[in-house]
């Protein structure tokens, strides 16, 4: 990574340039996300909807796109950021909340909560999802780092896949017992932002804000961890504490996102790689950029999902898998076998 | 017993986009022990792999008894020409006898049954390598030296007249290295097997070879009896190393002593 990073200019000036560019792209995507959809609407209807009017079907469609766009922005930022942190903590280029099974863990926790403990409020969803995500993250990491060589990319990915498949089976097992929620089974399998409302947004927001703050505070610690545990300890870092804190931030972010949107994979994988290529490996820059680029990617994927399958729409989780899987393969091919 | 002739003619070979051997001619002396030496990446393993059909040549050909080995049916070839690769894989939990009996593979078609002849070949191989008492032990549990003897036994069970070995002594300590090489000499003397191997250690190579081949830059730089090949001038050219070559007081073969920059006794 360092050699690629060295190829790009990383002076503050170029960072400011990239920051401006990413922000401009984000604004354009937001506009696009409100304007473009499975239903074509006129500009006047868009303006009217933005002004708060929902008189025509077109205006109502646009009005529904506003919270959806915000959700995509927030979810993308959360996933991009949590991916960057997970890759930092594990020093593993394949780490991602989806691949590590963390999203599926959150999904399972919600399914269990709904079916067996009768949870109904969005708030309870989020707490349960965060618990599930946290448990799964620790579980997969422990499995993946047992034995020789610690947590190699191959072992972590396999542990994540195994856990994902098991949890997906369990989700089906849990949901099938309840005829009333079984119809919604696909929403436990593929994530999307289609159902976003301002009410749901406001519930998830505090969790995401907490997650963002904790995550940003760990940037410097992640920089030390990147040098290896021993060297980090030599530099005076409390390694276990640093890792736990960063993990907490990442789990808050992806758990809360999964609670509202369902499992969305690969955003957390692609975004940090892209950002490292563009902005270098300093986490103080990498983390905020990962959040911004993640927001842009998910918004973009959501727009694409509305366009590809007209008049239906594609859940954003499907779109990200189609963008993300080839990227995953590309990363795998770049690695030396020895490191896998 | 007929001696098979193995030779390479105008051989060029390599991997992907790099050519390693270029226009190489090589005649293996039948019934003798040939040892190939050379610096890292000089093409000695590539030569061995091409001679044993693992690697198709770009140009030229490898002839066994006048017939190109790359146009011979694999099983037919494997009855005459055996190879012990550098890092063979022992399936988990397999026993010594079972692994050694895999050497009988080329002697069986799709439906032919295992017979007394096969048991005898396996028993002979176990005896020759002195591992009869290990026969029912799992290969995983053996030491490095024992394991190498098992692999050689597998190649012996194949009962080929020509045997190629790619660094059969790597990862072995010195006593096991000597043990393996002594075993190969026995085999050569008792059965007349033609042996070609790549060795890292120059002194062991000179000690055990009838015919020593020094490679440099994808070509054969010198070949012949060890005393003619292992000279100070050749070591300088092949390895880029200043050295003294003296006669080994026990075998009379040449041994090479590297001259470094330090720790030199004052000599007149």
């Amino acid at each position, binding site marked *: 990574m360092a050699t690629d990073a060295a190829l790009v200019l990383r002076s503050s000036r170029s960072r400011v340039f990239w920051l401006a560019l990413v922000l401009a792209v984000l604004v354009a995507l937001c506009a696009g996300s409100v304007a473009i959809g499975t239903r074509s609407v006129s500009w006047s209807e868009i303006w009217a909807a933005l002004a708060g009017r929902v008189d025509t079907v077109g205006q109502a469609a646009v009005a529904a796109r506003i919270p959806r766009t915000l959700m995509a922005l927030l979810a993308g930022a959360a996933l991009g950021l949590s991916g960057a942190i997970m890759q930092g903590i594990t020093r593993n280029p394949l780490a991602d909340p989806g691949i590590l099974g963390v999203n599926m863990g959150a999904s399972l926790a919600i399914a269990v909560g709904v079916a067996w403990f009768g949870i109904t409020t969005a708030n309870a969803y989020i707490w349960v999802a965060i618990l599930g995500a946290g448990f799964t993250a620790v579980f997969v990491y422990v*499995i993946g780092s047992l034995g020789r060589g610690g947590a190699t990319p191959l072992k972590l990915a396999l542990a994540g896949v195994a856990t994902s498949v*098991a949890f997906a089976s369990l989700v089906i097992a849990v949901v099938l017992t309840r005829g009333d929620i079984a119809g919604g089974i696909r929403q436990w399998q593929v994530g999307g932002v289609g159902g976003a409302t301002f009410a749901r947004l406001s519930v998830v927001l505090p969790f995401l804000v907490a997650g963002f703050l904790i995550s940003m505070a760990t940037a410097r610690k992640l920089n030390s961890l990147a040098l290896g545990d021993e060297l980090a300890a030599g530099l005076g870092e409390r390694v276990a504490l640093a890792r736990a804190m960063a993990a907490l931030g990442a789990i808050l972010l992806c758990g809360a996102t999964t609670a509202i949107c369902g499992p969305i994979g690969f955003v957390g994988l692609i975004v940090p790689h892209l950002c490292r290529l563009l902005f270098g490996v300093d986490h103080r820059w990498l983390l905020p950029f990962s959040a911004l680029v993640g927001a842009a990617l998910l918004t973009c994927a959501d727009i694409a999902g509305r366009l590809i399958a007209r008049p239906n729409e594609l859940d954003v989780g499907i779109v990200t898998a189609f963008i993300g899987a080839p990227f995953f393969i590309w990363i795998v091919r770049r690695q030396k076998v020895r490191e*896998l | 017993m007929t001696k098979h002739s193995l030779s390479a003619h105008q051989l060029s070979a390599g991997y992907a986009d790099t050519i390693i051997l270029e226009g190489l001619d090589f005649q293996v002396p039948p019934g003798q022990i040939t040892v190939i030496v050379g610096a890292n990446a000089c093409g000695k393993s590539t030569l061995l792999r091409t001679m044993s059909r693992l690697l198709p040549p770009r140009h030229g050909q490898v002839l066994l008894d006048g017939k190109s080995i790359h146009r011979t049916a694999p099983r037919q070839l494997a009855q005459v020409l055996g190879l012990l690769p550098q890092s063979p894989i022992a399936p988990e939990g397999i026993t010594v006898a079972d692994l050694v009996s895999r050497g009988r*593979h080329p002697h069986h078609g799709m439906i032919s049954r295992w017979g007394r002849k096969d048991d005898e070949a396996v028993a002979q191989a176990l005896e020759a390598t002195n591992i009869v008492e290990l026969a029912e032990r799992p290969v995983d549990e053996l030491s490095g030296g024992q394991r190498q003897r098992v692999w050689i036994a597998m190649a012996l069970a194949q009962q080929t007249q020509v045997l190629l070995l790619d660094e059969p002594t790597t990862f072995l300590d010195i006593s096991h290295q000597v043990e393996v090489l002594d075993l190969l000499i026995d085999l050569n003397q008792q059965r007349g097997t033609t042996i070609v191997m790549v060795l890292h250690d120059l002194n062991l190579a000179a000690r055990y070879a009838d015919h020593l081949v020094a490679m440099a830059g994808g070509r054969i730089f010198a070949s012949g009896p060890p005393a003619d090949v292992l000279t100070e001038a050749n070591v300088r050219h092949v390895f880029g190393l200043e050295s003294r070559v003296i006669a080994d007081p026990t075998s009379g073969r040449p041994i090479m002593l590297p001259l470094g920059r330090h720790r030199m006794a004052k000599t007149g």
Partner: protein
Amino acid sequence: MSMASVDIVAAGRIRRVRRRARVVLALLALLVTGFALTLMLGQSFTPPGDVIRVLMGHDVPGATFTVGQLRLPRAVLAVLAGLSFGLGGAAFQIMLRNPLASPDIIGISSGASAAAVFAIVVLRLDGAAVSIFAVAAGLGVALTIYGLSWRNGVAGARLILVGIGVSAMLDSFISYVLVRAPAWDLQEAMRWLTGSVNGARLGQSLPILISLLIFGGLLMSRSRDLQALRLGDDSAAALGTHVTRTRVMVIIAAVGLIAVATAVTGPIAFVAFLSAPIAARIFGSEGSLLIPAALVGAVLVLAGDYVGQFLLPSRYPVGVVTGALGAPYLIFLIVRAHRSGA
């Protein structure tokens, strides 16, 4: 050479052959017993006499429907699919020398499943056409994965990871097709998500039977060369095996087995992955694992389906049971493989 050592070798070999025969016979007995039991047991008990009369073609009130129409097609499908998955999975694992390189982990099953679901839901095909579609797609995916993991030779680790990526993509394609399907049918969705033998008809088993004969036969004819491949490509070549040709034949045969079965039952989770390691555990690693693995696969699907139908608080498709069973085993394997440093 002394007579004593020949005798040692011969005695060891005979012991191995006998042990192998014993294990195969025991597995066969287990499978037959399981098959018989699933015909007798269910919501209600059908006495063996009635089962036999139904099988002979007599009309037995009640039993003709439950046994002849419900239990028999289901059990036959479970056995044939299990044999196919076990055989195909073992072939991949042996060929790539890695228990993790099974078709359900490296995306072959997902490929066949995606093709089948596309053929059925979107193209509205059925029967043999679906099987052919699935086999073609399975081969395409196998080729793609192999090509993508090629970099101066194929390394096992890279192949597995590339396969994980490819199967993530195919799985989301399956979700896409299911979501777009005009009528959301839970049973149908379950089949393509985890695999199931629900609603089996006897006719569905025919393509699997034919594929077992053709592809299974092809695989068995390569069994000895497959054994040689376990010693590494170089050793196998030195022993006179045509390495590339063997690989190609084995891939075609194994993909064919997996794809045809998947086109009917969906990708029954982890059966292909589990069968050979379980067989190796019972059997030791000597000799060919193909037949024992096939038998283990059949027992797994049969037993998993029975458990899913009758022994759990709610009715589950077989894939849910094998998925929940297989994942802990996969984790165990990861932990153990890396502890021993393999």
